[in-house]
C-alpha cells in the first residue's frame, strides 16, 4: 500500500482508502475499489493527471498523497 503520488505514469492501481475529510476526492470518483491510472505528470511531479474509472482528474501532489492505493499487475 502506498500513496497515489508514488505511482509512476502508465501504472494502474486500485484505491484502498482515502484520508478522512477528503470528501471532494471521493465525490470525484477516487473511491475505495476504483481503478486509477496516472496518465501524466507535470514537470517536477506536480500536478498529476489521473484517470479514475471514466473520470479524468487534475490532482495536486498533496491530494494524491491522501489516496492510498495498491498496484495492479499490468493487464
Amino acid at each position, binding site marked *: 500500500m502506498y500513496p497515489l503520488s508514488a505511482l509512476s505514469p502508465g501504472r494502474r492501481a486500485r484505491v484502498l482508502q482515502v484520508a478522512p475529510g477528503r470528501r471532494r476526492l471521493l465525490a470525484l470518483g477516487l*473511491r475505495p475499489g476504483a481503478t486509477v491510472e496516472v496518465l*501524466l505528470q507535470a514537470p517536477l511531479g506536480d500536478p498529476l493527471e489521473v484517470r479514475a474509472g471514466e473520470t479524468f*482528474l487534475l490532482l495536486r501532489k498533496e491530494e494524491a498523497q491522501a489516496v492510498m492505493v495498491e498496484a495492479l499487475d499490468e493487464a
Partner: protein
Amino acid sequence: MSCPRCAPQASLVLKAEERWALVGNPNTGKSSLINALAGAGLEVGNWSGTTLERLSAHLSLGEARVELVDLPGTYSLLPTSPEEALVLTELLQNPPDRILNVVDAGNLERNLVLTLELMELGLPMALVVNLLDEAEAKGLRVDLEALAQALGLPVAGAVAARGEVEGVLEAALGAGTPHPPVRYPAPLEAALAALEPSFPSRGLALLALLGEGVPLPEPLLAAAQEEREKLLLKGHDPYLLALEGRYQKAKEVYEKAVQRQGTPSSLTERLDRLVLHPLLGLPLFLLTLFLAFRFTFALSSPWVDLIGRVQEVLAGWVAASPLPPMLRSFLAEGVVAGVGTVLAFTPVLFLLYLALAFLETSGFLARMAFVADRVMRWAGLPGKAFIPLVLGFGCNVPAVYATRALSHPLDRLRVALAIPFLACGARLPVFTLFAFVFFPKNAPFVVLGLYLLGLLVGLVTALLLGRFLRAGQGEGAMELPPYRFPPLKLLLRLSLARTGSFVRGAGGPILVAVLLIWVLLHLPLGSTSPYALLAQGITPLFEPLGVRDWRLVGALIPGFVAKEVVVGALGVSFLGGEGVAPVGLLEGLRTLLGALFQALWGTLENLLSLFAPASFSLAPEPTPLQAALKGAVAPMGALAYLVFVLLYTPCVATLAALRQVVGARWASFAVAYQLLLAYALAFLAGHLPLRP
C-alpha cells in the same frame, strides 16, 4: 427510448404551474437539455443571496406551464463545496415538482451515486441518460430498459447538444416518487430504522444522521444527533457507511445496464498527451490565448468603430438641433457619450465571451489549469483561478464575472480583487503613447514591464489576502472534462446571455459616471470649470511622484470611467476641445450607412487576416499630443504616471462587476487599496535609479 411503465405511482396529472429542477454532475449537459427542450428563451437570473448564475426557461405543455430550473452541477448531495451546498438547500427548501436527473452515459457509475441520493428525497423523479453518443465512442452500450428496471425510474436517453431529446418529456411526465433503492450496511440501517418513521423522507433522515444542516424541527435533529453519536461510539463512521452502500448499489446497477463493446477510442487521452505535454503544453496554450485575444479584438474593432461613428452622428444631430446650448452639450457629450461608452464594450465582450465559451465548452480551458497550477499555488489559489486572470488581460469586466466559476467564495474574492491590476486592453493606448514619447528606445520593454508588474501585484494581492483572511490552500482537485466540439448555437446563446448580464449590471453605473464627469467638465464655476479646479486642487499630491502638470493629473479623473479615456482627456486639455460639429440629417444618414458597410467589410477583412502574423506599427511621426506631452513631465515622472495608471482604481465597469460578484464593501475596499498601492508603487518607480 423511455420506460414510463417502470415507475411506481406515476403522477401523470400535471399541475397548471410546475417547477422541474435539472440536477446532475457538472458537465452532463443540463443546460443543453434545457435549450433542446425549451428552445429559445433562456434567461439569466441571480440566485437568492448568491451571485451564481441560475438559468431557467419556460415550457408550455398543453394547458400547463413548466419552469425548467438549471441547478449548478454537483457530484453529491453531501456537499464538498459551498456551490454544491446550494443545490441541497434549494432542493430541500424550495422542493421542485419533479427532478430531472441528468447523467453522463459515458460515466454512469459515478453519476449514479447522485441518482441514488436523489431518489431518497421523496420527490417525483425521472432519469435522463445524456451524451449517449460519447458513450458509444467510448465503446459503452447503455441498456435504458435495464437501467429503468434496476432503478425503478422512468428513463430517457438523449444527445441534448444535437437536440435528440425525444422521450425526455414522456419520462418526466411519468415521474413518480421512487422507492429508496439503497440498502446500507447493517449498523447504518439500524440507525435509520429508528429515525425514518418520524422524518419526512429517508433521504432527510440520512442527511440529518450524517450531520448535514437540514431545515427540520429541533427534536428531529436532536434524535438524529443521538443516533449519530451512538454509531460513532461503536466505531462506525456514518458517512463512510453511507458511501459504501451507495457505491455498492451504483456498481450493481451499472453492471446490469452497461456493456463494453470493442476497444474504446480515447480521444481525450491522446489529445491530453499533446496539450498537457511538459514542454509543448505551455507554448500551445499561449498560442491559443493569443489567438483568442486576436479573434476578439480583430473582429470587434470594426463594430466599436461603428458605435463611435453612430455616436458622432447622433451627437452631431443634437448639436444641429435648436435646443439651448447647455442642454445640447448635455445630450451630445453626456448622454450620447455615456450610452456609447457602455455600448462600445459590448462587441468586445460578446466576442471575448464567444471565444471563452468555445475554450470552456471544448475542454481546453480546464487543461490550462494544469499548466498554470504551480504559479497559482504559489499565490495560494486553485489552478482554475488562472482562467479569470488570463481573461483580465483582455478586459477586466468579463474576468471578474468569470471568477464565479471558482467554487470557494474566498478564492472568488481574492481573484476578483487581483484582476483590476492586470493591464487590460484599455490601458494599452496610454502605455504606448507615453512609452514612445519618453522611452523611444526601450518602449516595448517598458510596456512589457508594466504588464508583468500588474500580474505580480495581482498575485501578491491574492497571496496577502489569503494570509490575512486565513484561506486554506486552494482546492486543487478538479475534473478534466472530455474534449467536445460545442455547437455554435450553444456558444452564441451563452455569450449573448452573458453580454446582456453585463449591460444590465454595469450599464447604469457607467452612465451615471459619464454624466457626472460631464457636469464636472461643463458647469461653469467662476471663470474655470470644476474639472480644472479639482485637478489643480489635487495636483500637489502628485508632486512627490514627479508629476506637476494639472492637465496630466486631471486626465486621471475621467480615466476612472474607462482607462482609454485618459488619452482622450489629455488630448482635450493639452490641445483644446474641438466640441461637437453639427451634422445635417441626410449627411448623418449617409455617414451611418457608410460606417455600417465599413464595419461589415472590416469584419470580413479581419477574419481573413486572423491567422496572418501580427504587425506592430510604431508611429514614427510625433503627433501634436506627443510633442505637447514631452514638455509637460520628465521621463521618470512619466514612468511614475504610467505605473499609477496601471494600478489606480478599477474602471467603473469593473467596479460594477466587482460589486455584483463580491459585494459593495469589497468593491470600495478595492478602490481605496488600489489608490494607495498605485501611489506607493508609482513613487518607487519615479525614484528608480534609471537613466532613460
